[in-house]
């Protein structure tokens, strides 16, 4: 493991962790409204997976996409401003928490209809193929999406037409408040992809290195052989589904058990045990993350509001 790369992974996960904690704090202060779905606990998935992607690749994510957007390189200020509903937000305040977009980084949303992004990811991959480009589309979704018809339809279409998509299922064991075994007759999600003839892998989603390695294998296989791959990342959401969720469906003991596998703490401990992270390095890294976060909040606070007169702009292009 290269020291610099290890630090990069840790910094990226910390950036997400602290961004989400700050967003929760700002929510309680009323700076952020609407739905807010936090990614805390799942950071290793987005950070690990994003390492395997190039700028020419495309990303499609869900309504719990702050981590993916940060890991893809969208400036935290543009994301925080979007949460504030400001005109400087990455979607000009039209999208909010659930609808981050940045075409300059080929970040295509931000979808709050569960499984709604899968057909679009499939079509983006079709465009890559038809135009002779080599981009791969990384499509993130949760275990709840597996229930939807669009999941089956999209996997079948991508496999049938051998399209360059990596379908990344972030299995956090709950579709909102419904446990996997209570919404799926077959809880081994990989088998569903294999049923469409799609090579599928599963990985410990709490281990950023394991996720990175699995995603690299998948992306390289897509570039080499064509055709889609499926990756199930087994992870856990530490926070409530959204800010409005009293968490009646799971026990505190279960949450505490998973927190012992906290991806940020576990990776930090691992680096220290391997003598790859000195105290001073950790302090510097943490300080840089804090400074970045404070700058993002300040940017969002100072950002202008979209004028109400412009509310009907951009319904149509022309």
């Amino acid at each position, binding site marked *: 493991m290269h020291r610099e790369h290890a630090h990069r992974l840790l910094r990226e996960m910390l950036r997400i962790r602290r961004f989400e904690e700050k967003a929760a704090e700002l929510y309680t202060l009323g700076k952020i409204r609407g739905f807010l779905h936090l990614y805390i606990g799942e950071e290793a998935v987005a950070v690990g997976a994003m390492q395997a992607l190039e700028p020419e690749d495309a990303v499609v994510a869900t309504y719990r996409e702050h981590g993916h957007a940060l890991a893809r390189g969208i400036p935290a200020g543009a994301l925080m401003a979007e949460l504030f509903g400001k005109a400087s937000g990455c979607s000009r305040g039209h*999208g909010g928490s659930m609808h981050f*977009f940045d075409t300059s980084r080929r970040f295509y949303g*931000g979808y709050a209809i569960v499984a709604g992004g899968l057909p*679009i990811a499939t079509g983006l991959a079709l465009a890559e193929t038809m135009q002779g480009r080599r981009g791969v589309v990384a499509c993130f979704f949760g275990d709840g999406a597996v229930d939807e018809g669009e999941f089956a339809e999209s996997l079948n279409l991508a496999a*049938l*037409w051998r399209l360059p998509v990596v379908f990344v299922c972030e299995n956090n064991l709950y579709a909102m408040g419904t446990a996997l075994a209570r919404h799926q007759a077959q809880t081994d999600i990989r088998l569903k992809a294999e049923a469409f003839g799609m090579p599928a892998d599963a990985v410990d989603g709490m281990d950023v290195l394991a996720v990175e390695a699995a995603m690299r294998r998948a992306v390289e296989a897509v570039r080499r052989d064509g055709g889609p791959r499926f990756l199930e990342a087994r992870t856990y959401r530490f926070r409530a589904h959204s800010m409005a969720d009293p968490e009646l469906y799971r026990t505190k003991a279960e949450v505490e058990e998973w927190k012992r596998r906290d991806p940020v703490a576990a990776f930090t401990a691992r680096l220290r045990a391997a003598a790859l992270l000195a105290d001073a390095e950790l302090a510097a890294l943490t300080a840089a993350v804090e400074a970045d976060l404070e700058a993002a909040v300040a940017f969002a606070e100072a950002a202008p509001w979209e004028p109400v007169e412009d509310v009907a702009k951009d*319904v*149509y*292009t*022309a």
Partner: protein
Amino acid sequence: MGAGRGRGEGRVHGVTRVTYREAIRGALRDALRSDQRVFLMGEDVGRYGGAFAVSRGLLEEFGPERVRDTPLSESAFVGAGIGAALGGMRPIVEVMTVNFSLLALDQIVNHAAALRYMSGGQLSVPLVVRMATGAGRQLAAQHSHSLENWYAHIPGIKVLAPATVTDGRAMLLAALRDPDPVFLFEHATLYPLEGDLDEAAPLDLRRAAVRREGRDVSLVTYGGSLPKALAAAEQLTAHGIAAEVVDLRVLRPLDMASVLASVAKTHRVIVIDEAWRTGSLAAEVSAQIMEGAFYELDRPVARVCSAEVPMPYARHLEEAVLPQVDTIVATARALVGGHG
């Protein structure tokens, strides 16, 4: 005979005699020839030649990459059209009928229509979706409805109802030039009808069209009801009534200026719409006439719509449910004659 051979025969001053099906096929062929980004996908558009034979011959000419048979997965292939459009292509998606399009409503309403706005203007979705709509062929309650009004309700998409062979071609080509999602509703009874194709017609997606001039009553309609309205107008001459026929053409955004101009001329209006009356496009047009031309009206706006039942199979029942020429004529006579 394919449209390619058909066109050119009997050509007089750039106008040829073709069917509505051939006109659309010719537009598809020209679009596929002229722009490598254009491709057609949908159920049975390739080997089968299209459920309504619109795309027959195109697979042979353009190959399976650009004329793509899809699985029976409306949501996935409409959504894939959105994604392909975002990725730089110009997809034409054929959905077999409007009833089947309900399986893709999530992609259409939640995604295609919202993406530009939701992304703060970053994305455009240059997607064209064609589908057959309407009744008249005894296909009962899951193949026959006219639901284009539901689509016309949605900001972010454009909704077209080409009713003539020229519009069958020109509106498809105009849709392909448009940077936003455009939905074309092709009434299934129009496909075999012949008409004059004007290949030089402007590619206009804004204006309604006056198909027949008249001074006594305006028949406002679109799509498969246009031939009925024109037939009714012809019959009305025998009763001394000169009906004006306005073809809406574009159902979203509506060109109400053209409708209101006709109302100002005739002062009486019948809106003919094959959809169910309740919550219909006829209701919207009627409301906008009330808002925009209330004092021009000599009589209340009348509507001729379908009976509010799922479409029955038996021919006599289906005919009883649908707007018919006789009904339009009778409504017009009552409206004009009843005016003291």
